[in-house]
């Protein structure tokens, strides 16, 4: 094992230690929760960028916890896809942490927020670096339970109702996942994902793998808010406080849902044409339903929540196409969506902080009083609508090209149609919230504090410059290793079991 691989367990240890340190001494020292959350996320971002360099230099790195060799021992795996997801999660985590320093002043007991936030971050990074399937499940549960508590943080009526619905549906999804894991363990008698892939490749597909594929699709689809399982998202994301909505919509549904789905379906079970068709169909269904329901909304955050459902449909459809170009498009859209969706939710939070309401019919003309907020919201809306040269345009273009190249002309046309409607609701948000004349209650508002402006500004900058991730030099470093891991499928297992490349 190379010496630099020692940083892999730190991805889980740092947020976990920080969370309980805040719980221990955070109540007495006034500024400690803010400081701890910011430094932990900053540290994670630095380590994640270093891990991209490591994954490029050494290929797949396998870390044997406790010096027990896998498959007997627990393994943590860092490959291109894991490094990519780590950068996404820690980037959004850092900016949301900065934003929450200003926003959470309104709530009492800020140390509880810091503890739960760091626990959620620890769970998400644990899911990403997990090398065996039960570790993935435990870290998924840690992040999920922390997020149930965070949605209900304000303990108002709507927040509690939304959190209860989210908790019940999330528990049901976790039960399906656990049942699938139990079934797979009984069938292959191993928990290590690479070993499982090897065993399944030797025994071939059977009714058992079909049943577990359905169970995993239901469980992880519920965490990712794919369409038959999306009913919790439009209630949970608006009712949470704004930084938590940004984290939930920006990274949680992707790390716990889409990433775990990709890992299990590509690297363990093996992708078949039937599975690919199902993923594409569910993706297109999410796209359509999300977009149609988003246009009719007048609550700003509820509109953004339905928009999340439709963009997750884009990502899943891109990944489900199965060709390398489709996977590249899906993964790039995952990164872009994290950035612009969390920026949109942070803007909605800033609007609510300044005016006290989220209803689009009651606010208007905020562009004059809140220039930073409206500028960044405009950048994010252009990105989600797919206007060149913002980042969202490039990723949607790649997905549509991949669909045409693979021969699915109907899906490509559907994606273009959904893109046009997406631009429509993005423009609706901008028009009603920021342009026009200020209404009565918006006369005496001010811009939000500096730390909130800073995080929104940097995220908007990433939105504008995000297309540069497709340039030939940068693409090989960041995006292509991730899609190569998916394209190799179950052959990744051979790499992991031989101790990395």
């Amino acid at each position, binding site marked *: 094992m190379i010496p630099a691989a020692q940083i892999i367990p730190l991805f889980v240890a740092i947020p976990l230690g920080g969370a309980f340190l805040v719980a221990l001494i955070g109540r007495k020292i006034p500024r400690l929760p803010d400081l701890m959350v910011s430094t932990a996320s900053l540290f994670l971002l630095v380590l994640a960028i270093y891990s991209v360099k490591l994954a490029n230099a050494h290929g797949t790195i396998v870390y044997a*916890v406790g010096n027990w060799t896998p498959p007997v021992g627990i393994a943590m795996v860092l490959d291109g896809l894991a490094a990519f997801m780590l950068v996404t999660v820690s980037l959004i985590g850092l900016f949301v942490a900065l934003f929450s320093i200003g926003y959470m002043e309104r709530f009492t007991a800020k140390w509880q927020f810091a503890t739960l936030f760091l626990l959620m971050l620890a769970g998400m990074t644990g899911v990403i670096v997990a090398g065996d399937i039960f570790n993935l499940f435990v870290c998924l549960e840690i992040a999920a339970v922390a997020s149930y508590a965070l949605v209900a943080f304000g303990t108002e009526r709507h927040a509690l109702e939304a959190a209860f619905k989210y908790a019940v549906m999330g528990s049901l999804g976790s039960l399906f996942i656990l049942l699938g894991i139990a079934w797979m363990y009984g069938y292959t008698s191993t928990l290590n994902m690479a070993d499982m892939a090897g065993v399944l490749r030797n025994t071939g597909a059977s009714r058992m793998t079909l049943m577990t594929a359905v169970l995993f699709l239901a469980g992880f689809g519920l965490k990712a808010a794919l369409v038959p399982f999306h009913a919790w998202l439009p209630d949970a994301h608006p009712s949470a406080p704004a930084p938590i909505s940004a984290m939930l919509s920006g990274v949680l549904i992707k790390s716990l849902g889409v990433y775990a789905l990709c890992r299990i379906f590509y690297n363990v079970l093996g992708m078949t044409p039937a599975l690919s068709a199902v993923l594409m169909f569910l993706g297109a269904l999410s796209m359509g339903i999300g977009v149609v329901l988003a246009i009719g909304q007048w609550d700003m955050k509820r509109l953004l929540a339905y928009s999340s459902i439709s963009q997750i449909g884009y990502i899943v459809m891109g990944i489900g196409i199965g060709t390398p170009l489709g996977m590249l498009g899906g993964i790039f859209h995952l990164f872009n969506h994290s950035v612009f969706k969390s920026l949109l939710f942070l803007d909605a939070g800033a609007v609510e902080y300044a005016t006290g309401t989220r209803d689009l019919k009651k606010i208007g003309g905020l562009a004059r009083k809140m220039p930073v907020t409206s500028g960044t919201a405009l950048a994010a809306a252009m990105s989600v609508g797919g206007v060149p040269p913002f980042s969202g345009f490039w990723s949607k273009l790649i997905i549509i090209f991949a669909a045409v190249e693979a021969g699915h002309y109907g899906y490509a046309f559907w994606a273009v149609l959904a893109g046009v409607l997406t631009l429509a609701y993005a423009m609706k948000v901008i028009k009603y919230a920021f342009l026009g004349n200020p209404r009565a209650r918006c006369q005496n508002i001010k811009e939000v504090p500096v730390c909130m402006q800073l995080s929104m500004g940097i995220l908007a900058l990433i939105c504008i410059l995000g297309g540069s991730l497709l340039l030939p030099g940068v693409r090989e470093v960041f995006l292509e290793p991730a899609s190569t891991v998916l394209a190799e499928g179950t052959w990744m297992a051979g790499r992991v079991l031989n101790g990395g490349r």
Partner: protein
Amino acid sequence: MSLIVKTVTRLTVGLILLYGVYIVSQGHLSSGGGFAGGVMIALSFVHMMLAFGKETAFKKLSEAKALFFESLGVLIFLGIALLGLVGGVFFLNFLPPGEAFRLFSGGTIPFSNIAISLNVGAGLFTVFLAIVLLNNDSERK
């Protein structure tokens, strides 16, 4: 609660706590370990709260102290895992294994058990305390 319940509780709650500590300490030799022992330790405090009322249990283990023990347990566990990094690998079992079937054997496993029992015991007691406090707040309104 009636006199019979109070007398029996006074006699048995110390034994329940002791049995929980026994289960924790024998975790690496027989079944048990941190989780099961921690639950029993927490249940001894809950038993006292059920029989005597909230105030007596508060005097024995207040909310702040329970939170302190909970965080301390996790931090000790994480510390043991990170100390393994000194020996080379995360979570390495770096203490000598000792002879089989003795109490002081198994490397770092007994210490991990103790840390987990602190965490689970204090955590479960805090959960019960929180629900009781919530109920009292809502009844007062």
